[in-house]
């Protein structure tokens, strides 16, 4: 056993710092006992108790720093002393300037007076409470969380309405406010078209198409999918229309929703009627007459909604590249498919994209099944088994319960795709790939191996499998739109230029004997 002593004269350290150093010194490899302390009587007493007090230490003054190391060998003592010297050297600039962390909306709002919006994505059980606190603090709310009860939604929206605040959501995935996309959204040009959307991917699609047609967005207000239900009564859509009407930059307003409850549709159209700005109404699967009667502009598809909006906003319709349906392509694909390959299988991340494709198929066929079908007879009893034409919203709760959304975790969709690809009655599989803020960093890339595998298997069986892809995104988005499209095309996937065209192409590819 060896003991080494170092005394540094007139070197002061606070006792707490020294305790901390001692603790670290005792953890040095090979150290039996280490004491780093000022030469006070009390510390000498401690050294005496542990049998380390030498005459040299006894002579140390209160202002002297004592370093004592006990280890198995001289070498270990020496190396420990070197390690102790290192402990005294402070690594400066340890961290960047402290960013104050707030734990509650109350304290953040109180300390950040310029805060004007809360984006809330906590578990649904706690979400309404946080949203209420945000509204109490005069913050507009983007409530991404789902599993918030309809009673809570109504209470929050009424409260927001009284305070003149936006209450987007619950279950609101998309908004663009002041050219800032919140949660999921695409990078679209600034312009003069305002959107109020009760459906997330539908709103994304319309904003992207507007950008594609050369137009731009002022605001995109998401309302959450239940806003136009009987119970909620369209509180946020009505407030949204009003706000866009008052917004000087907005020239045209676009409304997007699944078909609203009848009484709510009446309220919304009444507001459309009194609105001084042109309003394009795209209620998926909705009827034209009431919209026209209200003086609105009816759109049957998302693409039509975007075209009408940009034209109303000042674009020259004749100069638009409307990306007409490619009929020669349709003929070509039809020729490749066998008579048995009758069905479309749509596997979607985007709920509205699924809805639009499904409604377009329903215009042509009877037997269109889905997990989100309104018609009870055609709602899939077993979501894990497709029937005839099947369109699946894989972002719906049926699929996501306890699992991440397919936009984030593609594994469920990959498995389902491989199943569908084996079915000889399937002519075309339609899939969406959503780019932009909040999306997967490479949505095409994660699907690609499965696509190649399915294609190869079908070829082995002498069967053509048509895979139709739609990439929702703009040239400004991340990941890069062109690269994503190229990857799909290189894998032999046919690309649709819009959600609408995707639905139309899919249904036409499998049409027989016309």
């Amino acid at each position, binding site marked *: 056993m060896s003991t080494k002593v170092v005394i540094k004269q007139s070197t002061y350290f*606070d006792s*707490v*710092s020294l*305790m*901390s150093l*001692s*603790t670290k010194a*005792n953890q040095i490899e090979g150290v039996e*006992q*280490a*004491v780093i*302390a000022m030469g006070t009587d*009390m510390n000498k007493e*401690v*050294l005496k*108790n*542990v049998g380390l007090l030498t005459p040299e230490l006894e002579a140390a003054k209160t202002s002297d720093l004592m370093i004592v190391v006990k280890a198995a060998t001289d070498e270990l003592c020496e190396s420990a002393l070197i390690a102790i010297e290192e402990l005294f050297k402070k690594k400066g600039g*340890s*961290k960047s300037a*402290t960013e*104050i*962390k707030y*734990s*509650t*909306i109350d*304290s*953040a709002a109180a300390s*950040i007076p*310029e*805060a*004007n*919006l*809360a*984006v*809330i*994505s*906590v578990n649904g059980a*706690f979400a309404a*409470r*946080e949203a209420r606190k945000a509204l109490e603090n*005069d913050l*507009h709310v983007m409530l*991404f*969380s789902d599993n918030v009860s309809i009673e809570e939604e109504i209470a929050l929206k009424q409260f927001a309405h009284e305070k*003149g605040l*936006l209450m987007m959501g619950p279950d609101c995935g998309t908004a663009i*406010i*002041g*050219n*800032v*996309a*919140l949660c999921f959204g695409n990078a679209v040009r600034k312009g003069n078209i305002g959107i109020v959307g009760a459906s997330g991917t539908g709103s994304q699609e319309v904003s992207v198409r507007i950008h594609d047609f050369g137009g731009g967005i*002022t*605001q995109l207000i998401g309302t959450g999918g239940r806003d136009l239900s009987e119970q909620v009564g369209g509180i946020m859509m009505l407030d949204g229309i009003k*706000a866009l009407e*008052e*917004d000087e*930059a907005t020239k045209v307003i676009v409304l997007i929703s699944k078909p609203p409850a009848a009484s709510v549709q009446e309220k919304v159209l009444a507001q459309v009627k009194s609105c001084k700005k042109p309003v394009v109404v795209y209620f998926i699967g909705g009827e034209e007459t009431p919209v026209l009667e209200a003086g609105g502009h009816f759109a049957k598809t998302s693409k039509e909604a975007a075209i009408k909006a940009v034209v109303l906003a000042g674009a020259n319709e004749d100069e638009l590249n409307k990306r007409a349906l490619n009929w020669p392509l349709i003929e070509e694909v039809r020729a490749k498919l066998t008579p048995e390959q009758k069905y479309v299988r749509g596997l979607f991340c985007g709920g509205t994209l699924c809805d639009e494709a499904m409604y377009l198929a329903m215009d042509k066929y009877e037997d269109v099944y889905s997990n989100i079908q309104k018609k009870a007879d055609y709602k899939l009893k077993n979501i894990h088994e497709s029937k005839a034409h099947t369109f699946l919203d894989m972002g719906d709760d049926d699929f996501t319960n306890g699992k991440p959304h397919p936009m984030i975790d593609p594994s469920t969709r990959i498995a389902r795709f491989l199943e569908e690809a084996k079915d000889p009655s399937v002519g075309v599989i339609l899939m969406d790939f959503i780019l932009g*803020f*909040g999306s997967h960093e490479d949505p095409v890339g994660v699907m690609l191996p499965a696509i190649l595998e399915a294609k190869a298997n079908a070829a082995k069986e002498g069967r053509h499998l048509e895979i139709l892809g739609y990439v929702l995104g703009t040239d400004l988005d991340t990941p890069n739109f062109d690269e994503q499209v190229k990857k799909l095309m290189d894998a032999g996937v046919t690309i649709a230029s819009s959600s609408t065209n995707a639905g139309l192409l899919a249904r036409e590819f499998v049409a027989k004997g016309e």
Partner: protein
Amino acid sequence: MSKINELFNGKIHAINVGIEFFKDDIIKQNANASHLDWKPPGGGKPELINALDKLENAAVAEKIAAANKLAVERIINSQPMLVGFDQAINVVPGMTKTTILHAGPPITWDKMCGSMKGAVTGAIVFEGLAKDIEEAEQVAASGAITFSPCHEHNCVGSMAGVTSASMFMHVVKNKTYGNVAYTNLSEQMAKILRMGANDESVIARLNWMRDVLGPMLRDAMKIAGEIDLRLMLAQALHMGDECHNRNNAGTSLLIQALTPYILETDFTKEQKREVFDFVASSDYFSGPTWMALCKCALDAAHGIENSTIVTTMARNGVEFGIRVSGMAGNTWFTGPAQKVIGPMFAGYKPEDSGLDIGDSAITETYGIGGFAMAAAPAIVALVGGTVEEAIGFSTTMKEITTAENPNVTIPLLDFQGVATGIDIRQVIQTGILPIINTAIAHKDAGIGMIGAGITYPPMEAFEKALLAVTETISQ
């Protein structure tokens, strides 16, 4: 312009709660976003969330806000003055020759931890109620001694908090509200009674404190009249103390104020010299003084109907107890005392430590100590080692407190006041516990202090308090 249109035209500054990359995406788009360090309120326990909801009912919340405003005003406006020193038997309410006060919530002899037992037996010997420690144990167990929490006698006691009849006490009077608080004298550091040591050297020191130090301070204060402690506390913080574990500046200020009067007392030069040497032997001399100040201010805020402000945090080495203003009297809410994590004296290991003990958390209850770590960069080793972390602790505490005390400020934080008025609702809401920096006593009797570090109260105590307060207030 409507609020929605203001939003359209203004610059987005979002508060993001939940998925963090939403914040990153907003920042990428050249807007501002602040991400909350959010946890489910009440740890996600439905009964606690229900309770919080009940307390957020507008009418109830208003009552609480008014009560809490009054409570923190009383804490902040309290002006505790040191007015004297005297023996406990002469001044402490309810004190008898066979009473022993202890730290923390009520506890019986059989349940006391090692260091408290050590201190109790030492005190019994010191008071002449037993001839040695062995006999003292029998006396303690016999039922002849009345054990009672310091807090229930307007007192606070460091570590084991053991206070007996003939010990000298600080007498601190609230100039604003008139109430009085007491605490005994610092024995300085290491092998001392309040840390559980009780050998002859410890008893000898207590005797000297009773016969020389105490009377000298008593006589000095008779001449001095009063000393404004709050002013001195504010100064000490500016000089780099947080006034729980670092008392270098405060001790200098206090002895500086007392010295002229000590010199005027009738004690011998040698005795005066002893006193000055004693004070110089450690920097902890003023430690208990601040505790009495804090107790004096907080007692003035106790018993305000509907208030959710914490007026006491104290530990007996087994249990941690809190009292809440709205629950008048001695209603304790308890949970298990926690380990204290921090640097230790050479030769001791974490397994030697006793659990968190002492009434000294009264300093954190007032807003200094762990709450004011940013004022004391010299001892940041206690809280992890960096000044940033120390600042972080001081600013984080604002999340669970109601006000900042403008009379006690921290230079490093642009002279912001210390976080004051712990609100049990905010503790449950945020999941943030008050940080306490404190000494570590050995787990066994007879050894004493072996280190210092940080600890937290058990959440359980706050949970129980919230549920009880909710029931009381909603009625």
